[in-house]
């Protein structure tokens, strides 16, 4: 009797372990090293899963501009579609994922900065975004200066909202939410006047089917964010990736990806800077 009881407990524990093991998604262990040269079994690419228009998990398949660029680059490096293992790369974890060699490349609205260059390498840029504002279509806001006394939404810890407050409109009311979805929901309820982050992310939000025709990107960017491909320090992939990006732009696939993902939104990327020329590899 006693043994049965403790035996049952042990069985339950074993079942729980099995449960936790089978849930991992069954992904194959990918290329061991960050090097991941062509011919290796698969390539692990970090993207956003919750950023419509850039990297979005549509229930089993992935869509967005970052995803399309990643697919193209992976294709040029010799990986077919089913050799790509998509990994979620939330902003807070991107450096960790790379320095621990848990992904080979990151395409996740990843701005090239000097601080980040200390821990990771970058290829690209493949796009140049700028912090901007998303407002209702009938709004009179034309730039961050107009935000005094208005309500501005961003995600917790955003540098964009802080910049607006510090440099343009001291009297702005900041509200921080766990995600941009909450911000857009609040704006369609009429409680906030603008959402701020990189313009292409805003355009992606506005391009959502449910938001069509409701919002516009102001088009007055107040920063320059060079989206790069995050690589492990010392990776040898940089020049190959740059060549792939250049080819993508030349072939027109870059333009096409941008148009496809941001269809129906009144948004033009900063034409002086886009499409960009990749920087030289270090």
């Amino acid at each position, binding site marked *: 009797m006693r043994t049965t009881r403790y035996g049952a407990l042990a069985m339950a524990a074993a079942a729980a372990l099995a449960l936790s093991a089978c849930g991992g998604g069954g992904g194959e262990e990918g290329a061991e090293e960050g090097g991941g040269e062509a011919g290796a079994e698969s390539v692990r690419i970090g993207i956003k899963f919750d950023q419509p228009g850039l990297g979005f998990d549509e229930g089993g398949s992935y869509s967005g501009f970052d995803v399309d660029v990643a697919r193209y680059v992976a294709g040029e490096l010799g990986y077919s579609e089913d050799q790509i293992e998509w990994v979620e790369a939330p902003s807070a974890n991107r450096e960790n994922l790379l320095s621990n060699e848990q992904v080979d490349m990151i395409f996740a609205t990843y701005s090239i900065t000097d601080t980040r260059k200390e821990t990771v390498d970058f290829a690209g840029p493949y796009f140049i975004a700028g912090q901007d504002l998303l407002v209702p279509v009938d709004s009179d806001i034309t730039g961050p200066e107009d935000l005094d006394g208005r309500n501005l939404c961003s995600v917790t810890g955003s540098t964009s909202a802080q910049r607006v407050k510090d440099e343009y409109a001291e009297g702005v009311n900041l509200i921080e939410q766990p995600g941009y979805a*909450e911000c857009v929901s609040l704006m369609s309820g009429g409680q906030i006047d603008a959402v701020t982050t990189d313009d292409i992310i805003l355009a992606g939000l506005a391009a959502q089917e449910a938001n069509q025709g409701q919002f516009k990107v102001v088009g007055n960017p107040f920063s320059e964010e060079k989206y790069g491909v995050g690589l492990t320090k010392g990776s040898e992939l940089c020049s190959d990736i740059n060549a792939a990006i250049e080819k993508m732009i030349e072939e027109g696939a870059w333009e096409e990806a941008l148009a496809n993902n941001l269809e129906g939104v009144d948004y033009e990327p900063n034409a002086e800077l886009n499409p960009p020329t990749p920087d030289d590899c270090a």
Partner: protein
Amino acid sequence: MDSFLSLFEQYDVAAAFWVNIQLTFWAAIWSLLLGTLLALFRISPIASLQWFGATYVNIFRNTPLTIIIAFGVLALFGQLSVSLSSDFNLNFFRLAILGLSLYHAAFVCEAIRSGVNTVPLGQAEAARAIGLSFLPAARLVILPQAFRGAIAPLGNVLIALTKNSTVAAAGSVAESAGLMKTMIEFRSDMVIPIFFTFAFGFVLIVIPIGLLTTWASKKLAVSR
């Protein structure tokens, strides 16, 4: 060590904890009031109020607090334009208090009901025998004894509330859990010291509350 201390110059940890303490204080008062009212509903002779009390408790006790806090911001503020203060930030602070109060009131109600269960039947019978009707009997005889019997479970609700005040981070309130996340993101080399700073902060707040309520529940227990 120096770089650890420099963290405190850069980030105001004490202020973040102070926000948690304020959230806890106000939510404790409101949830105690609302919870007592709900407990009264549940023991009252009026069927519709009994039903309301029971339904309220079943709904709020079984919903994750994060969803309640999110509804406060997205539905009450976002859609219904409920404003609890003309000051923008104070409004979210108060919405968080509202969410915390609504959630914990369900637990306060159950704690008081368990306190009511410690009051012997004879007390209610005696109250009726001297001609008290429901409300005076509840106010003068039952609840005073029930509160004293409910101090331990109420103390547990208070401890839970203190810790749950961190969930207000999801409602645009700058408190300690949010600050810890920011600090770790910017100083990932100091993950462990940062965590233990915040963890011990909560240990320092929670353990005295536990000791105090245990002491009070013994001291104030109705001896039978």
